[in-house]
């Protein structure tokens, strides 16, 4: 009986602290969380405006993302099951992950993986100059809004065709500048 009461008290205290922690946390934490949430959402939505080559046989969408990425958590929370009517699998990256099996790769790196440049894998990152470094889509913050840059050359190399509707929203950058 006493152990039951103690267990209950422990749960209530934990809940209380959680509430106090989340409500009293700095706004930065809150903005960041929203930003990540939007980015997670945008990743899924971007996929819907991209046309993969017909040669690619897709039975599902594999979104590969580092497990430690805050966006991974948000993707989990979004509970989105399909992209373009194909089942969505969120795959946590590790060293054994076969990148070529991924259709979408969210990278925390500044530069896209060279090994997959010419493969139909949509590369997305929030790292600065990711698009300029050969990545396809780079999230950035403009006036507190999540915006995207895109490197259409990277798209072309990967034989991915972004929808014009998507392109209208993107800030287009080229790798050529980076090479200079």
């Amino acid at each position: 009986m006493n152990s039951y009461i103690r267990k209950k008290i422990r749960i209530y205290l934990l809940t209380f602290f959680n509430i106090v922690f989340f409500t009293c946390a700095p706004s930065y934490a809150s903005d960041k969380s929203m930003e990540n949430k939007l980015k997670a959402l945008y990743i899924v939505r971007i996929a819907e405006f991209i046309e993969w080559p017909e040669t690619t046989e897709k039975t599902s969408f594999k979104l590969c993302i580092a497990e430690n990425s805050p966006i991974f958590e948000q993707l989990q929370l979004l509970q989105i099951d399909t992209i373009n009517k194909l089942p969505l699998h969120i795959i946590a990256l590790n060293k054994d992950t076969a990148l070529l099996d991924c259709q979408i790769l969210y990278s925390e790196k500044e530069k896209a993986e060279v090994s997959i440049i010419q493969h139909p894998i949509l590369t997305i990152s929030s790292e600065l100059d990711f698009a300029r470094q050969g990545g396809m889509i780079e999230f950035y913050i403009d006036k507190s809004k999540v915006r995207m840059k895109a490197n259409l050359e990277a798209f072309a190399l990967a034989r991915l065709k972004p929808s014009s509707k998507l392109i209208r929203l993107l800030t287009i950058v080229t790798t050529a500048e980076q090479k200079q």
Partner: protein
Amino acid sequence: MIKRLLKNSLSIKNKIILISFSGLAIALFMVSAMLVFQNSQSESKELSNRLLIQSQIIANNSLSALLFDDPATATEVLTALQADNSINSANIETKTKQLFATYLKSTDAPSNHLTLYRALPWLKKEFSIQQDIFYHDDRIGSVHITASLSQLHQNNINYILITSLVSICSMMLTLLLINAALRHTISPIISLTKTTQKISRLNNYKLRAEVLSQDEIGELARNFNDMLSEIEHKDLILERTVADRTAELLQLNNRLQHEASHDPLTGLANRLLFEDRLQVVIAQAQRNKSLFALMYFDLDHFKAINDTLGHDTGDALLIAVTQRMQIAIRAEDTLCRIGGDEFTLIINTIESAADAETVAQKMLTAFALPFKCNEHELSISSSIGISLYPEHSAKKIQLKQFADIAMYTSKQSGRNNYHFFTKKMQTDNSQKMDTRVLLKTNLKSSIANGELEVHYQPQVNMDSRIVGLEALLRWKDSNDEFISPNVFIPLAEESGLIQDIEEWAFSVICQDYATWQKAGIDKLNISINISGYRLRQNGFTQFIYHILEEHNLSADFLTLEITENDLMQNVDEMTEILSSLHENNIRIAVDNFGSGYTSLNYLQQLPIDEFKISSEFIRHLKPGYNDNPVINAIIGLAKTLNKSVTAMGIENHEQLLQLDSFGCNNMQGYLFSRPLNKKEVSDLLSHTQFLPL
């Protein structure tokens, strides 16, 4: 209004134009209205479809902007709408109705609104459409586009203006075409109308309408011409008939005028024309200071000839006399017949009384030889009176009066002579003339004043038994003086009073007889003198029967006395009348038998019951002579014919004895009794049936 216009005096051409124009205007209006409506609907639908498509495009293009929360891009998408000038504004809203992006047409954009459109504030100005934006079946927002309808309205107004213009042009063109077509079609009708007006104005049915076409109007013109021919023909006949009738009327008028102013028997001027001519001659004489004479003629004893030989002979004598008188006068003199046997002669422009005397002498000479009339040789003379203008008088009335007085003097002085008027004649005759006039006047009131009386003279048989009474009329004037029937009966006949007097006398006689019947006096026969003229008058016999019935009397007591001369006038008619009376038990007696010209043949045919021998014959019976061939013959004839005989005017015993010896049946005269009044007769008959000698 159009019905009133059609009913009024619009010409056919204008009516056709009005009808065509009205029909065309209605048709064009309806077509234009339909086209405008259809165009408006079409443009509305097109605008709606366009906005729908544009909203769908915007929705599609703005989906990603909404998904990635990019209002700027969405605004860019909306900016594409500025290409459509009709779109006033566009909005993109999130699903929570928050404005995501907006577009508002620049105020610098050109406006197509025209003044006319602005003048119609009640028109709907804008049209809105909404398109939802879906992402995986989730509504994530909506697009709202608002378009101006001004262009649509302006298009409609332009369309209306164009169709109106086209309609007006069409109508004007049609008007020209109809006018041109009608000018050709209507011209025959106008020509026909002008022809009818001309015919009506000139009354000339010889005119003909020109046949300008072979259609119904041409047929109408032909029929009209046929009708005109018929009218012309009938008009001609009518004109001829009218001319004939006019000529007949003129002839009749002349004849009537002639008859009105001329004597139908002799053809001489009658009294009317005489008066007129006399007036003219007096005026001429006054003007020319000339003399003229006026003659009055009266044939001597003409009445006797008329009574004895009948009116036909009398008329024939008048004609013969006229012819002979005309030979004796000049053409410029005027001979007139102003009465039965009275003539006048106006002798124009004489130098002296001697000229008139010469004419009078020639006239008397003209009567010297006998006249042959109806197989009779008749001698007749004339009495002539002469008045002179201005010696005796300058006045028409006096000239006539003086000539009449002079003529009367000629009569008084033995007839068959002439006299000029003198002042002495005027004095002598005025008294006589006044007496005649006075008598005529008094006679008119005699019945009302009870001055007329019926007296009865008894008739007896040879045994002196009273067998009958002859009714005789007596007039005792206001001075208690008896006036002879010989005086007042001609006056009564002359003035037309005889009919009233006879009817009054019949009524009195029947009343008296009824009184005697009631008093128990034996049956008597009453004789009444009646003229043939009255017997022939319509209704006289019915009058007799009516009076008898009124007094409840049978007719068998009545004897009507008729003179021989009346009996022989139109014997067939008289036979019929007398037979009718005889069948009703009225006896017929011949008065003064033997003094006339009775045909023995007719004596057998006529229903005569009695002969009455004239007192003239009785007066000539000579005492001592028991033979008188005439009376013997009359009585013998009566016995042969089974008639009774009554002798009149018996005044002495000698006459009585002689007549008795001759075998006379009845007698009447002063020997037996004078005519008695009703009371005297009643007294006599109540005491005796015999009249002692």
